[in-house]
């Protein structure tokens, strides 16, 4: 798999996401939540999962349907997405033009001891997204490819799916707020002006 040539997520995720203020953000648990908590400094427009594995994409869909004038970005990992690949079918059928998904694929369940995931053993989540009917997809395997993907996330009528393949370097560390009720209130107050 030539993993050593894949980019470090600490460099590639910020490049693909670009300015996080361009989106309402939902981040799946573990690595992706750490990536996005660090990148956004837990800004009000980001909601990070700490559990409920498999729920990030459908939560992003609910948000995208509720806020059709805003761009919604789901950032999640290969393990989280593998747990509920059917959510790509929902997204494809509902076809919200304002929803983009970035799957940060390190091929491992890093949080639980770095066991190999299915994507390191032949499963290609971009093809799965395509097979579900998502028309605009990309696989990014180098820092050079990040910028084009970042543009597609912003400027293409979605749904858009970007598979960002990264090496096994860990996500950024740091404390974060695990109180989802408080994060929900912060998010809604900033977006809607009400808790």
């Amino acid at each position, binding site marked *: 798999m030539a993993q050593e040539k894949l980019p470090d997520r600490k460099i590639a995720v910020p490049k693909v996401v670009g300015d996080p203020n361009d989106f309402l953000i939902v981040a799946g648990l573990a690595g992706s939540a750490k990536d996005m908590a660090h990148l956004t400094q837990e800004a009000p427009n980001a909601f990070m999962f700490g559990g409920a594995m498999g729920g990030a994409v459908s939560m992003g*869909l609910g948000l995208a*349907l*509720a806020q059709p004038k805003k761009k919604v970005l789901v950032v999640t990992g290969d393990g989280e997405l593998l747990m509920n690949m059917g959510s790509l079918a*929902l997204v494809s059928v509902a076809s919200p033009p304002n929803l983009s998904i970035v799957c940060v694929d390190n091929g491992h369940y890093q949080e639980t001891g770095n066991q190999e995931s299915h994507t390191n053993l032949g499963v290609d989540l971009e093809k799965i997204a395509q097979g579900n009917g998502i028309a605009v997809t990309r696989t990014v395997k180098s820092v050079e490819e990040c910028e084009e993907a970042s543009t597609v996330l912003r400027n293409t009528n979605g749904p858009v799916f970007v598979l960002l393949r990264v090496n096994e370097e860990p996500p950024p560390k740091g404390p974060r707020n695990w109180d*989802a009720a408080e994060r929900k209130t912060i998010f809604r107050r900033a977006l809607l002006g009400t808790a």
Partner: protein
Amino acid sequence: MADKSAGSTAWQDQLYDTLKDAGVSIFSYVPDAGHKILINRSLADPDVHSIRLTTEEEGVSLAAGAHLGGAKSVLLMQSSGVGNCVNMFSLMENGRFPFLTYISMRGDFGEENPWQIAMGRGTQPVMEAMGLKCIRVDSPEDIITATKAALGMAFKSNCAVAVLLTQKLLGAKGF
């Protein structure tokens, strides 16, 4: 039988109208015969999103996302689908998200399919263990009262609420 089916159509239409009047704009579901009228109403309604799920837990996190964005969502599922949602209910508790689901019961009063019995028995205890408040409805005249109570508890008190449409209400499917 003709009278009973005409009556059941009336309460399901009333239920749909009550939910829509309360501002519900997203209906998500794994199809079930007990929810057929609501599903068809949502599909025919240009004012709402009618979302086919592949597994019921998607409707749980979808409801949380809808609330983040200021919309109201309802999940329609069969009792067997509750088993597919259990871990996702933790999102609702930790986030104190409003959540309203309608459960068409199988495996209870008069069930003739043995495969439904176990999850039918487990449906309410499992939901209560995960913090959902359960309201059972056995007769058509109670559905609107139950729905108004459930809407208030969910969307004003940030509770997770399940309205169980029992087989006394829906009738048992014959095998």
